[in-house]
């Protein structure tokens, strides 16, 4: 099967080369046979990569320990669940997994648009094939997952061997989130290739601006949704498994996933400027280029080991391949831009500082500043070594000092932006739209201050969260009221109907609402507490309103590990609440240990209990307990963000105008931003 898989991979490489070279010929000659055959080749490349990936999975499922990659990451006792995930546990397999997910996107794009956008698709096909060629080069020639296991034999040649059992999966990876975090995150990274391909193709083909924006929007939203989910799942995994009580450490690999998210978010907003007013064309094109380049940079940072990280793969020379690819991408983008930039001329100007364009401009500005800051901070050791000879590292204080104010300003814009009018907002409109939100925000701030909160940033954050929530609720309320006039349905039904008629706008508001909840969760960090103590059975520690009593501890052998478990009883007001079981696991195959945190999570706070280890002198267990307020809001907010994106991706429900007899319908009152629609609108906005 491994021969079969590696054969599929090399065939995929050949098809991709044809799709690329033949595709260029197809663009030049416009010969229909060339156009069709290169598209087929592109589809074939994807299918062959699917086959290769399934072959590797097959090797895992059949415990084939003659394949080096399977031996390194699996063993017989490993649960099937984790055998699937072992595919992406190491360098070679995760690169194949990257190709696999990219191929799903490429396949979908080639099939979906096979009879449309004939001017553009040949260019898109060539660009996608080019990207696939790079990753297939790595899959085939640099980091092959199908390497057979061999030892030097007596005659000096390599002898193939088969192990009785493998090494097993690293314990830190034996957690359910291992099965979902990488697929989501990689789907985000690879997904941004599609808008990149369309943007570059449109630039090369001088395709009308509105059309390529329209086409890529859905794909960008899909990639963005996966990226957001991937980042939050990673944070949750770090929180639940590593046992340091936090969820984000500004580690280089974490930052790598955040960078394209920042530019991707900026792009999702600034496209609206191009659609409505034909502005920011150059900016948008470079934003998409930057997002894709940051995705490749992100995976380069993770795999090359140029910056030290707790996540990084072992050091290898694969980094130079990525640097080469980045140089090629940048050169191609720059060349295409310089050649065709007159086609990107702006159609309008910025009119006023109090306008929706202006809020998008500031949104983009601070997202970009954040991106530059995080990128510089992450690469600082490399930069400082090049400049001054000594490697200097910057840590959390740097990243937090810059990003917290940025986050708060972004939160402010989230409330303000949607209520500003295009071009110029009048004073009456400002008063009408912002009176209530401002009042609610200020009152909330005063109340929270009165309740004892003195942390300035958290206070501002909570105020802004109330401010933004009010603006969003008001938007839904106003729109629902209009629909209710006609249909006499409840407010809820009207709000749903409202959303379904303009999914992009109201789905977007739902996403904003989700982000507000995430910010509420983040604001809790300022109030974290923790306590650590050596415990014997019967002793207790107190944290907040909780009292933790260690009842007993035991050791339990399982299939592939031994669990050292603490039985902790939690009391509130001297009444027993529940039992928690923080655990340390010692894995048989490689002797490594893993920490299983016990978390009691409520909306108000998380009680987070870790079996920190044994005291060196007394051998008694040491418990480290944390009280983390509001963390649950982050995960809950993330779910809302994903839900909102799904809503925004749905096609609009058409508004139907019903005439009864000779009665003329009263014209719908003009709700801010919404024009009455008497024509049927096709599908998505």
């Amino acid at each position, binding site marked *: 099967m491994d021969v079969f898989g590696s054969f599929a991979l090399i065939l995929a490489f050949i098809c991709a080369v044809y799709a690329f070279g033949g595709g260029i010929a197809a663009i030049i000659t416009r010969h229909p046979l060339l156009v069709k055959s290169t598209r087929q080749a592109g589809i074939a490349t994807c299918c062959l990569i699917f086959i290769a990936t399934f072959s590797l999975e097959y090797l895992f499922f059949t415990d084939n320990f003659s394949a*080096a*990659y399977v*031996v*390194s*990451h699996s063993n017989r006792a490993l649960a099937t669940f984790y055998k699937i995930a072992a595919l992406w546990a*190491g*360098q*070679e397999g995760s690169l194949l997994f990257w190709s696999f997910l990219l191929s799903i996107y490429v396949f979908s794009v080639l099939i979906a648009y096979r009879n449309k956008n004939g001017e553009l698709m040949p260019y898109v096909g060539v660009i996608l094939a080019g990207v696939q060629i790079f990753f297939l080069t790595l899959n085939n020639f640099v980091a092959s997952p199908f*390497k057979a*296991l061999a*030892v030097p034999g007596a005659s000096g040649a390599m002898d193939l*061997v088969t*192990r*009785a*059992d493998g*090494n097993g999966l690293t*314990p*830190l990876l034996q957690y359910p989130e291992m099965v979902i975090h990488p697929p989501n995150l990689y789907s985000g990274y690879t997904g941004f290739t599609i808008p990149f391909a369309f943007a570059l193709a449109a630039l090369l083909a001088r395709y009308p601006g509105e059309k390529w924006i329209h086409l890529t929007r859905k794909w960008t939203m899909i990639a963005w949704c996966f990226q957001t989910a991937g980042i939050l799942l990673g944070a949750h995994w770090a929180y639940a498994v*590593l046992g*340091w009580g936090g969820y984000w450490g500004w580690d280089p690999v974490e930052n790598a996933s955040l960078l394209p998210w920042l530019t991707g978010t900026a792009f999702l907003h600034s496209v609206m400027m191009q659609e409505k007013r034909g502005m920011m064309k150059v900016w948008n094109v470079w934003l998409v280029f930057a997002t894709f380049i940051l995705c490749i940079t992100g995976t380069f940072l993770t795999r090359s080991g140029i910056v*030290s990280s*707790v*996540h*990084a*793969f*072992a050091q*290898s020379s694969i980094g130079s391949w990525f640097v080469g690819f980045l140089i090629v991408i940048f050169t191609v983008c720059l060349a295409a831009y310089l050649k065709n930039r007159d086609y990107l001329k702006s159609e309008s100007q*910025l009119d006023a*500082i109090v306008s929706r364009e*202006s809020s998008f*401009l500031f949104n983009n*500005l601070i997202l970009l*500043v954040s991106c530059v800051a995080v990128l510089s901070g992450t690469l600082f*050791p490399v930069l400082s070594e090049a400049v001054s000879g*000594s*490697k*200097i*590292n*910057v*840590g*959390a*204080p*740097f*990243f937090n*000092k*810059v990003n917290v*104010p940025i986050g708060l*300003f972004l939160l402010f814009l989230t409330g303000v932006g949607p209520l500003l009018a295009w071009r110029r907002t009048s004073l009456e409109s400002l008063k009408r739209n912002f009176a209530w939100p401002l009042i609610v925000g200020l009152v909330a701030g005063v109340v929270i201050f009165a309740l004892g909160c003195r942390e300035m940033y958290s206070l501002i954050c909570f105020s802004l969260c109330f401010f933004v929530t009010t603006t969003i609720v008001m938007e839904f309320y106003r729109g629902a009221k209009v629909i209710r006039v006609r249909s006499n349905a409840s407010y809820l039904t009207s709000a749903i109907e409202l959303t379904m008629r303009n999914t992009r706008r109201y789905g977007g508001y739902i996403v904003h609402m989700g982000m507000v909840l995430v910010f509420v969760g983040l604001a809790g960090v300022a109030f974290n507490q923790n306590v*650590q103590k050596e415990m014997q059975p019967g002793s207790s520690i107190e944290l907040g309103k909780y009292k933790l009593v260690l009842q007993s501890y035991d050791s339990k052998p399982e299939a592939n590990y031994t669990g050292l478990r603490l039985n902790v009883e939690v009391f509130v007001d001297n009444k027993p609440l529940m039992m928690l079981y923080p655990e340390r696991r010692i894995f048989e195959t*490689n*002797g*490594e*240990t*893993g*920490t299983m945190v016990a978390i009691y999570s409520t909306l108000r706070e998380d009680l987070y209990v870790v079996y*920190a*280890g044994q*005291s*060196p002198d007394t051998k008694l267990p040491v418990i*480290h307990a944390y009280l983390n307020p509001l963390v649950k809001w982050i995960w809950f907010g993330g779910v809302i963000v994903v839900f909102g994106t799904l809503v925004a991706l749905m096609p609009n429900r058409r508004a139907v105008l019903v005439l009864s007899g000779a009665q003329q319908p009263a014209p719908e009152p003009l709700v801010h931003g919404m024009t009455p629609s008497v024509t049927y609108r096709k599908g998505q906005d």
Partner: protein
Amino acid sequence: MKKQAKFAVGISVIVVALACLAWLGYGESKTYYHTIAELESLKGAELSRRMRVGGTVAPGSIHHFTGRVDFVLEGEGKSLPVSYVGSDPLPDTFVDKSQALVEGRPTDGRFVAEVVQAKCASKYEAAPGGTVATSSAATK
């Protein structure tokens, strides 16, 4: 051109404010990185700076005491005795032969570390019943 000026002012204010914050944050958190070999050649003010040092944990050198953990880091043929005095539990990946990164200050021939980070070392295969063989497959 007045509105252009307004935008320019607004943008500059934001960028300058954030640059100032970045500068402050940098000052608060900057940590130099040195190899074990370089430590011997540091002098004066450089020795009292907060720094990070990387190396491999020497097998059998990890000893736990009350309030500190002693071990020896090895790299490029040199060795460095380290005392970890932080309150957080050591990471699960901190075992013999793992690659570790310590952060703190050198004191009296030892290195006093407040933070210890560790990473899985490249795997060596030692399967039951089989001979030991090397593999270049990376882990994690």
